[in-house]
């Protein structure tokens, strides 16, 4: 979302990082992954973030296998119990065990986050790369469309789209993806424009390579760094969007749940002091999103440094 604006700062800088070392193009994509692995080894915050993400994934998807609670039949007699040995995080207002609910909710939240980010990045990459490569009138048209859609704040668009499409998980993913693809498309277009004039890309055209070949085998792999950075931020933002939508009532209907929905429901009891309904889902959201932000920040910082060294 606005994290892409942070990389905008570096693009607005008057430093010329082009034209100096033309020969040093990024080699095969293998080295990009190794670069990313190195980043995690060097930067402790990023490693912590990655660890938290992995832990959350295991907690939500493998947890229910180890910690059996049933999430289908509610039991009002057990409602709103505070934490105890039988229910380590208490029970919620219809009797579900909160810890189990946290795991199930996390599955939805993480699924929606990853899937929406994937759609957003895919759409954005294709749109931006084509616009940047083709140039001319088509480029102008495509980018005007992006600018127009960007004039609409994300949440307003999400509310509108959420009201149009009925709420279910696939549609929620689609809605978030359709709103979030705008930012990666601008980033990819900028990268494409700068990559287009590199010698090795022009050499492909000289050798008779088709434009599709240039696009798929040279430009897109070299934008992977920016894309990965943006994708991490997209996941973080998607999780918060889902939480906000659930609070506003445009989330997934029960019995499906996600962290945002649980938080929203728990907040009804804020004056009753049932803290176990509020803090677990809230903290889960914050910790996960912070972890993604750490990882994204570290990736972006490291990528810029390496860009400068080129």
């Amino acid at each position, binding site marked *: 979302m606005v994290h892409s*604006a942070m990389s905008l700062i570096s693009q607005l800088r008057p430093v010329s990082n082009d034209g100096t070392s033309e020969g040093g193009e990024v080699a095969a994509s293998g080295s990009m992954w190794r670069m990313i692995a190195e980043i995690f080894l060097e930067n402790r915050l990023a490693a912590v973030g990655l660890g938290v993400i992995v832990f959350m994934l295991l907690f939500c998807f493998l947890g229910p296998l180890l910690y059996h609670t049933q999430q289908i039949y509610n039991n009002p007699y057990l409602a709103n119990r505070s934490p105890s040995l039988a229910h380590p995080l208490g029970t919620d207002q219809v009797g579900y065990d909160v810890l189990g609910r946290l795991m199930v909710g996390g599955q939805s939240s993480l699924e929606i986050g990853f899937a929406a980010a994937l759609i957003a990045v895919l759409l954005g990459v294709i749109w931006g790369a084509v616009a940047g490569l083709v140039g001319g009138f088509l480029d102008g048209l495509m980018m*005007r469309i992006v600018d127009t859609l960007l004039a609409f704040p994300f949440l307003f668009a999400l509310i509108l789209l959420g009201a149009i499409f009925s709420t279910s998980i696939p549609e929620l993913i689609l809605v978030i993806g359709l709103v979030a693809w705008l930012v990666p498309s601008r980033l990819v277009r900028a990268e494409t424009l700068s990559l287009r004039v590199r010698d090795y890309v022009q050499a492909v055209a000289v050798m008779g390579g088709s434009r599709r070949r240039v696009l798929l085998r040279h430009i897109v792999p070299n934008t992977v760094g920016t894309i990965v950075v943006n994708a991490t931020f997209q996941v*973080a933002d998607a999780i918060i969007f889902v939480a906000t939508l659930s609070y506003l009532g445009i989330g997934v209907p029960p019995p499906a749940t996600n962290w945002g929905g649980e938080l929203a429901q728990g907040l009804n009891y804020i004056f009753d002091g049932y803290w176990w309904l509020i803090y677990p889902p809230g903290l889960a959201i914050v910790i996960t999103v912070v972890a993604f932000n750490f990882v994204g920040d570290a990736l972006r910082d490291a990528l810029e440094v390496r860009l400068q060294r080129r």
Partner: protein
Amino acid sequence: MIGFIVRRLAQSLIVIIGVSIVTFILLHLLPGSPIRAILGPRATPVAVHQLTVQLGLNKPLPVQYAVWVNNLIHLNLGYSYKLDQPVTALLAQRLPKTLFLVGTSLVLAVVIAVPLGVLMAVRRGKVDDYVLTGLSFVFYSMPSFWLGLLLIGLFNATLNWLPYEAPQDQVSVLSQFNGMVLPVATLTLVTVALFSRYMRSSVLEQIVQDYIRTARAKGLSNRTVLTRHVLRNALIPVITLFGLSLGGVLSGAVVVEEVFNYPGMGLLFFQSAVNGDFPVLLGVSVVVAVATAAGNLVADILYAVVDPRIRYV
């Protein structure tokens, strides 16, 4: 320079027109029909047909759009049947309230975030920076409705210092200032978290530049270097980002208005979306688009004013 401004204005105008078209089309995809909403579920087909013709809803879409634009130019945004008021009157009531909330929060956020960002950058790697950066990460990663409700829980339920609802009446909010503290605080906190990170990033980029090294070599004190050189140059890209963030802050305002029941435009938009109130949605969308486009325009122009190098783009 004038050419630059004119070109940017023209672009903004195109964007606003585009947004209105997109919103218009989207709203006609909304399920449910305004006719049924007005007449109720027991309407006879004759009455439905009459009202359709009367409201002009049987004409093709482009014609309807043209009619709407014509009305817009005469400042007639339609009539809301759900709320029983002309849309323009509704907007006139609600817009100032949102402007007050967003304006106050933005100003406070800038005033707090700029020094904070500089501090974080200057103290980079020390404990201060880690603590502040960590805090800004946390506040940025919190859903704003949770932050708002936590603040309510703390300041109202536990301490009982501040009311949990924003002032509802039409009187000036300044007379009931207590109720505005928490909404403004929530929006400001989230915005400061974001802005301070931008500022820190930008200052860090300036500090490593050669001209700063020259300034230090000349013997200028750290404070002079900071205020006279780093701050001005670091503010340049940050101004643009602040302008571009207006849309995000408006989005945040929607949530804050909902949490604190503040009768502003964001709450109006949300309630209308839930109720399927087309004219209001269209009206608010146009206003929001205009505001965002204006924010982008101001950001671009300010950037061109401050940095002469980009005037010829």
